[in-house]
C-alpha cells in the first residue's frame, strides 16, 4: 500500500515537473524563433477565443428586436471587449506570428527573442488592464464619447477620473510594445537574411507589412496618448483631427493580417496546385502597390463626416487603386489554381488556403462600391459594412491564419503529419466554419442595405428573421473552427516523433520515457505526451504511432 502511495506521488510529481521553473520560463520567455512564433500564435488564439465569446453574447441579444435601454450597458461593454480584443489583441499578435513564421520558413531567425517575448507580455498587460476598466465606447473610441465621465456618458464602467487616463496610457504602452516587436522583426530579417538570396515570396510579404505596421501603429499610440493628456492634463481634443489620426492606423490595421497572409497564399497555392505561381514577378510588384496604397486611403471611413470635397476625391481614387492590387492578387492566385492539373484541397492546409481565397473574393466584392461616395452613404454605419469586413475576417484572415497554423504544426516537428481521420475532421471543420459564415456575411450586408444600423440593440422587426438566422448560423460555424483547430492541436499534442517504440520495464520510471526526453530536451509539448502515456504505475506502454 505504502509503495502504491509513493508511486502515485511520484507520478503526480512527474506530471507537475512539466511546470518546473525552467519549463515555465521557457514558455514565458522562449529563446528560440519557433518558441516566439508559438508564443504569438498562442496569444492570437487566446484573444480569438475572447473575441468569439463576446461576439456570441452580442448575437444572443440581437435575437430579440426590442432590447430595453438597460441592456445597453452590458451590450456595449461586450461590444468593446469584442472590438478591442480583435483589433488591439488578435490582429497585431496574429500578424506578428505570421510574419515571424514567414521569416522562419525562409531561413531567417529572431535574434532578440527576450525582447519579443517581453513586448508580448507588455502588450497583453496593457490591453488587459484597459479592458478591466469595462470600456463601453466601441473599438474605434471616438471622441469626445471616449473621454466622457458624467451623468450622461461614461466611457468606462469601472474606471473614472484619472484611472481613465491611465487606462489609455496602458493602451498606448500596449501598442508601442507591438510596434517595437514589428521593428525588431524587420531588423532581424535584415540581419539574418541568407546572403545573396532573394527573400521568398512569403517572407517578402511578411517583412514588407511588418514595415507598414511599424509605420502606422504609432498613430494609434499617439491617439491614445492624446486621450491620456486630455484626461490627466486637460489638453483639448480636436475631434476631426483625432478621427483622421486614428483612421491613419485604423484602416491599415485591417491589412495587418491579410497582407502577410497574401504571402502565405502565394506560397501555399502553388504548392497545392502542383505548379509554380502564375506570375511571381507581379506578386512581388504588387507588394509596393498594396503597401503604399494601404496607407493612403484611411479617410474613406469618414465619408459621412464634414470633410472637404478634394479629400473625398482623393480617397475615392486611392481606394480603387488599392482594390486593383487586391484584384491582381486574386487573379494571380486564381489563375494558378485554374491552370493547374488539380488543386489538392484534401490536404488541410490546402483546404484552409482555398477557403481563404474564395472567401476573400466573396468578401472583397462587397467592398467595391464602398469607396464611391455617391454610394457609400447608402450603407455607411449599417450592417452592410459589418457583413463585408466580417466576411473577410472569417475567411481570408481566420482561414488563412488556420492554414498557416496547420503548417506551423507540421513544420516545427519534422515527421509530423495529420492522420486520415484528423484530416477529415479538420477539413469538415473548415467547411462547417466557412459555409455558414459566408451566408452570414451576405445576410448582414443584405439587411444593412435595407437599413439595419450597426451597433443597435433595438431594431425594426423587418430585420428579425435576418438576425435570428445570422445568430443561428454563427452558432453552427463556431463549432467548425473549434473542430478544425481542436483536431489539429489534439493530433499534434498526442503525436510522438518516435516511430514504433515498445519497451517493457519493471521499474517505476520507464527508461524509454527518460531516453526520449533527453533527446528532446527543451521541447515542452514532446514531453507532455510522453509523460501522459508512460508514467502509469511505472508500467509500459506503446508510444502512439501516427505515421
Amino acid at each position: 500500500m505504502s509503495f502504491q502511495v509513493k508511486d502515485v506521488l511520484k507520478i503526480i510529481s512527474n506530471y507537475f515537473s512539466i511546470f518546473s521553473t525552467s519549463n515555465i520560463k521557457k514558455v514565458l520567455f522562449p529563446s528560440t524563433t519557433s518558441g516566439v512564433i508559438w508564443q504569438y500564435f498562442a496569444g492570437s488564439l487566446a484573444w480569438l477565443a475572447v473575441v468569439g465569446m463576446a461576439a456570441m453574447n452580442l448575437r444572443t441579444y440581437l435575437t430579440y428586436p426590442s432590447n430595453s435601454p438597460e441592456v445597453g450597458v452590458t451590450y456595449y461593454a461586450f461590444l468593446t471587449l469584442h472590438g478591442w480584443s480583435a483589433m488591439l489583441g488578435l490582429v497585431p499578435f496574429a500578424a506578428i506570428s505570421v510574419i515571424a513564421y514567414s521569416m522562419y520558413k525562409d531561413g531567417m531567425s529572431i535574434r532578440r527573442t527576450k525582447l519579443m517575448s517581453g513586448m508580448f507580455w507588455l502588450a497583453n498587460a496593457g490591453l488587459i488592464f484597459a479592458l478591466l476598466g469595462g470600456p463601453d465606447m466601441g473599438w474605434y473610441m471616438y471622441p469626445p464619447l471616449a473621454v466622457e465621465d458624467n451623468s450622461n456618458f461614461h466611457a468606462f464602467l469601472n474606471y473614472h477620473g484619472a484611472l481613465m487616463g491611465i487606462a489609455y496610457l496602458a493602451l498606448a504602452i500596449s501598442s508601442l510594445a507591438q510596434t517595437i516587436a514589428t521593428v525588431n522583426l524587420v531588423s532581424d530579417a535584415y540581419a539574418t537574411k541568407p546572403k545573396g538570396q532573394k527573400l521568398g515570396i512569403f517572407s517578402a510579404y511578411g517583412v514588407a507589412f511588418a514595415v507598414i505596421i511599424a509605420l502606422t501603429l504609432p498613430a494609434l499610440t499617439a491617439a491614445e496618448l492624446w486621450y491620456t493628456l486630455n484626461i490627466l492634463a486637460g489638453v483639448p481634443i480636436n475631434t476631426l483631427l483625432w478621427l483622421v489620426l486614428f483612421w491613419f492606423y485604423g484602416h491599415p490595421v485591417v491589412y495587418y493580417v491579410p497582407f502577410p497572409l497574401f504571402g502565405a497564399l502565394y506560397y501555399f497555392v502553388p504548392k497545392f496546385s502542383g505548379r509554380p505561381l502564375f506570375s511571381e514577378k507581379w506578386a512581388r510588384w504588387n507588394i509596393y502597390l498594396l503597401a503604399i496604397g494601404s496607407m493612403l486611403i484611411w479617410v474613406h471611413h469618414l465619408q459621412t463626416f464634414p470633410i472637404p470635397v478634394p479629400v473625398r476625391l482623393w480617397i475615392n481614387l486611392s481606394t480603387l487603386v488599392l482594390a486593383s492590387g487586391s484584384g491582381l492578387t486574386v487573379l494571380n492566385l486564381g489563375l494558378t489554381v485554374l491552370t493547374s492539373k488539380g488543386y489538392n484541397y484534401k490536404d488541410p492546409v490546402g483546404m484552409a488556403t482555398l477557403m481563404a481565397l474564395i472567401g476573400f473574393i466573396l468578401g472583397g466584392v462587397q467592398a467595391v462600391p464602398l469607396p464611391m461616395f455617391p454610394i457609400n452613404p447608402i450603407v455607411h454605419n449599417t450592417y452592410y459594412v459589418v457583413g463585408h469586413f466580417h466576411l473577410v475576417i472569417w475567411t481570408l484572415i481566420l482561414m488563412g491564419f488556420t492554414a498557416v497554423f496547420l503548417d506551423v504544426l507540421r513544420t516545427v516537428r519534422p515527421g509530423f503529419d495529420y492522420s486520415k481521420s484528423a484530416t477529415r475532421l479538420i477539413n469538415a471543420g473548415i467547411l462547417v466554419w466557412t459555409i455558414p459564415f459566408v451566408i452570414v456575411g451576405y445576410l448582414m450586408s443584405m439587411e444593412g442595405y435595407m437599413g439595419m444600423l450597426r451597433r443597435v440593440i433595438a431594431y425594426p422587426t423587418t430585420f428579425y428573421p435576418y438576425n435570428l438566422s445570422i445568430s443561428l448560423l454563427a452558432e453552427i460555424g463556431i463549432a467548425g473552427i473549434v473542430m478544425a483547430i481542436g483536431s489539429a492541436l489534439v493530433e499534434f499534442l498526442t503525436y510522438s516523433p518516435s516511430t514504433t517504440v515498445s519497451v517493457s520495464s519493471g521499474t517505476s520510471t520507464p527508461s524509454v520515457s527518460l531516453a526520449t526526453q533527453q533527446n528532446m530536451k527543451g521541447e515542452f509539448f514532446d514531453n507532455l505526451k510522453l509523460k501522459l502515456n508512460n508514467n502509469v504505475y511505472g508500467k509500459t506502454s506503446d508510444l502512439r504511432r501516427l505515421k
Partner: protein
Amino acid sequence: MADFKEKIAHHAELAWFIVMLVMVAVFFSWSVIEVTNGSSTSIRYGLPLFSGLPAQAQQAVLTFEKSPPANRTSEVVDGILVVNMTAMQNGTFSDVFHPNVIVAQPGEPITIILNSPQVITGFFIRLPDGVVNVNAVPNEPSYVYFVAPNQPGNYTWREPELAGYDFSYMTGTLEVV
C-alpha cells in the same frame, strides 16, 4: 485569332490589370463629374458640408442664420424648409433631436443644420428615392439637403452613430402632409 487568344492567356495579368485601371478611371471620372455638377446622390441628399449644398440652399441657410425665426428651429426661406436641429442627451433617450418632428409638403426641399454639441451623432433616414446619412461632430455643424418624398406619410429618421447606451432609440419623424 488563336494567336491573339494565346497572347491574352500569356499576358492575362497585365490585361486584367489594365482592365481594372480602366474601371478605376471610369468610376473616378464618374465621381468627379457627379460632384462637380452637383448631381450625385451625396450632393443631392446633403454632403455634410455647407459647400456641398446647392446654391439656393446655401442662400437659404445664410438668410435663416442672419435673421432666425422666433421659434429658432425652422422656417421656409425662398421655398426651402430650413431646420436648425440639435442632438442633445440629458440622461434619457427621448427628445434627443430638437426638433424631433419635421412637417413638410410633398416634394418640398429641406435643409437641415445639424448641431451635435455633446458627442458625435448623425442623421439617417431612408426615403423612397434614397438614403440620407450624415454625421455631425461637436462644434462643427453638418448640413443636410434633400427633397421630401412625393408620397405623404411619416418617415422615421434614426441616430446612426454610437452616441451612448440609448442611441438605438434616438429617432425623429418627418411628416409629409
